[in-house]
């Protein structure tokens, strides 16, 4: 009889010990914009280390909410928190990867990159002030393109979104009207147009609706074979959405100027800079309740920074510059600490 109790106790103990092994998966939630690359990294990382990532792409606002509620180890957001917010909540923030937002159109006979827009014109279209494609403002920028006499159908996001935040941020930078009438947020009061859910929803509606215009993360434009436009950037140059143009915008950014690297890459200077480049951030606690899990997550991010570049480029994201990565890792060592003030994760390289 005694034998059995000992065995049972041993069994329970084994079960208890094996539980944390399952729980070692890193949990995170937030932005949908970087979801494809996080999923790809997670897959490769699991093969290499056996540690999985459970990332729920519920939107940037949701990511901020979840990390504040401490239900996840990290949150992810395309809209950075301010220094004040970070201090109040005891969070750290660092950029993980960058990408580009592109305007997409559905116009018969017009090829990708053929149509050129500038910021103020784009703002007027989304404000509903420019109503047809052959409007003089668009015609002025596109002397060689034959524009149809067709109503513009605006398509925007219906769910709150970091993509919307960055898009609106750019429009507010270049248009005083946009700033005062609509403003900048993850969700907006749109003056015109139809709302579609998610990047894929916008891509689909633009694909289906003749005469429409929308904005999506670049990978979605490629996957859905949509016609993107070129943009006139801050330096007055006509640029297309390419990895080089996203990289150029990032290279010109002053990453250290904002707390938690909260630099928004919209409308950066530089001849080659794509004006709607955007970074996406990770949010974690400075003094986490579960240091082991946090260390495990930081290890994953470190791995993604050092080994994930190629995978990011394959999906048309832009990896963070090495200089910024080095700085971020120094920031971890200084800011993410345990109860004794020691860094929770020490870099292996």
């Amino acid at each position, binding site marked *: 009889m005694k034998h059995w109790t000992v065995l049972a106790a041993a069994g329970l103990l084994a079960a208890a010990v094996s539980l944390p092994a399952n729980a070692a998966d890193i949990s995170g939630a937030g932005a949908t914009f970087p979801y494809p690359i996080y999923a790809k990294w997670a897959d490769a990382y699991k093969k290499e280390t056996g540690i999985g990532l459970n990332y729920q792409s*519920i*939107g*940037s*606002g*949701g990511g*901020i*909410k979840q990390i504040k509620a401490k239900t996840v180890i990290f949150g992810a957001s395309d809209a950075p928190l301010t220094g004040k917010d970070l201090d109040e909540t005891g969070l750290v923030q660092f950029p993980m990867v960058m990408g580009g937002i592109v305007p997409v159109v559905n116009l018969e006979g017009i090829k990708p990159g053929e149509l050129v827009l500038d910021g103020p014109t784009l703002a007027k279209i989304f404000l509903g002030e420019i109503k047809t494609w052959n409007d003089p403002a668009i015609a002025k920028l596109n002397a060689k393109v034959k524009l149809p006499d067709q*109503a513009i*159908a605006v398509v925007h996001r*219906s*769910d*709150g*979104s970091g993509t919307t935040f960055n898009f609106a941020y750019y429009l507010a930078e270049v248009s005083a009207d946009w700033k005062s009438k*609509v*403003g*900048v*947020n*993850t*969700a*907006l*009061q*749109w003056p015109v*147009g*139809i*709302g*579609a*859910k998610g990047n894929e*929803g916008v891509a*689909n*509606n633009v694909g*289906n*609706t003749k*005469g429409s215009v929308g904005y999506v993360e670049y990978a979605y434009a490629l996957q859905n074979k949509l016609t993107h436009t070129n943009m006139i950037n801050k330096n007055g140059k006509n640029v297309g959405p390419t990895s080089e143009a996203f990289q150029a915008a990032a290279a010109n950014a002053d990453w250290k100027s904002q707390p938690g690297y909260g630099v928004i890459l919209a409308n950066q200077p530089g001849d080659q800079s794509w004006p709607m480049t955007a970074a996406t951030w990770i949010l974690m606690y400075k003094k986490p309740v579960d240091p082991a899990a946090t260390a495990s997550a930081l290890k994953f991010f470190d791995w993604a920074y050092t080994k994930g570049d190629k995978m990011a480029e394959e999906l048309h994201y832009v990896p963070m510059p090495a200089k910024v990565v080095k700085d971020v890792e120094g920031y971890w060592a200084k800011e993410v600490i345990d109860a004794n003030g020691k860094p929770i994760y020490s870099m292996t390289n």
Partner: protein
Amino acid sequence: MKKTLGRRPVADVALQSGSLSVAEASDRSKVLQKLRIGDIGFRLLTRGAAITVLLILGGIIVSLVWGSWEAMGKFGFAFLITESWNPVTEQFGAISPIYGTIVTSIIAMVIAVPIGLFIALFLTELCPMFLRRPIGIAIELLAGIPSIIYGIWGLFVFAPFLQQYVQPLLINTLGNVPGIGGLFAGPPYGIGILTAGLILAIMVLPFITSISRDVFSAVPPVLKEAAYGLGCTTWEVSRYVVLPFTRVGVIGGVMLGLGRALGETMAVTFVIGNAHRISASILAPGTTISATIANEFTEAVESVYTSSLILLGLILFVITFIVLAFARIMLMRLNARVGA
């Protein structure tokens, strides 16, 4: 015999009760006592189950009121009549989602109720026997399709079809009719209030049809035979015998369909256009209460925003309550008229 009495079926005990001796009579009262205890237990159990529903409902109301308290305090009654829905300035008003919810439901019911009743009448009164099963099964299958599938189908198949063929036709014909022309104005987006209403009509159709069919087939054949015997046509039998006899059940089915139309979320979110605006045209994009909540809840970081969304939920709850209460009153009136 005494020992086995307690275990024997009640009917046995009853049969033998006439020839019981005094000792057996006392035994009998013990058995009855036991049965009574069982009965009390059963009554308590069922009553408990019924009360649970009330408790859950009460809990939902309390938490909705609790969650929406902040928005109620900030916006007050104006929340119900303001069109602005601006997360940037944190100004919220519910009139456009309320409008969208009601208009899409009305479109759905206007289409689905007559069609549903006609299908049910056809199935019970006119359909050849060999067709009844296939049509019946097809209708029940429609009810089994998850709403997200309706949404995706609506977005990928139905909306482009409407945009290319139906909406241009509506705009070019009905759009020029004085009076109602405004309802069919604007560019053909494909998605919008009308599309959402049509999808909802398809979704609620099986509810109305199945329930109506079931109550129609419960009409005693003798009533119908009597009517036919008097020389009534099929139409007259349906109109003056079947429908009056089953109206409580039919209204129940319609209300179930209406309930689904009011609260339907995913399918509507895909095809309604999600714009917080009230347009005169039913081709224009709009939004409903549940679509707004589904779209925006995860991103509502500020507490006023979250609270406003919960308040929307409370409003939907109230609308549903009013609709159900209205249905009850209507039924009571109908019954009173028949009684008089």
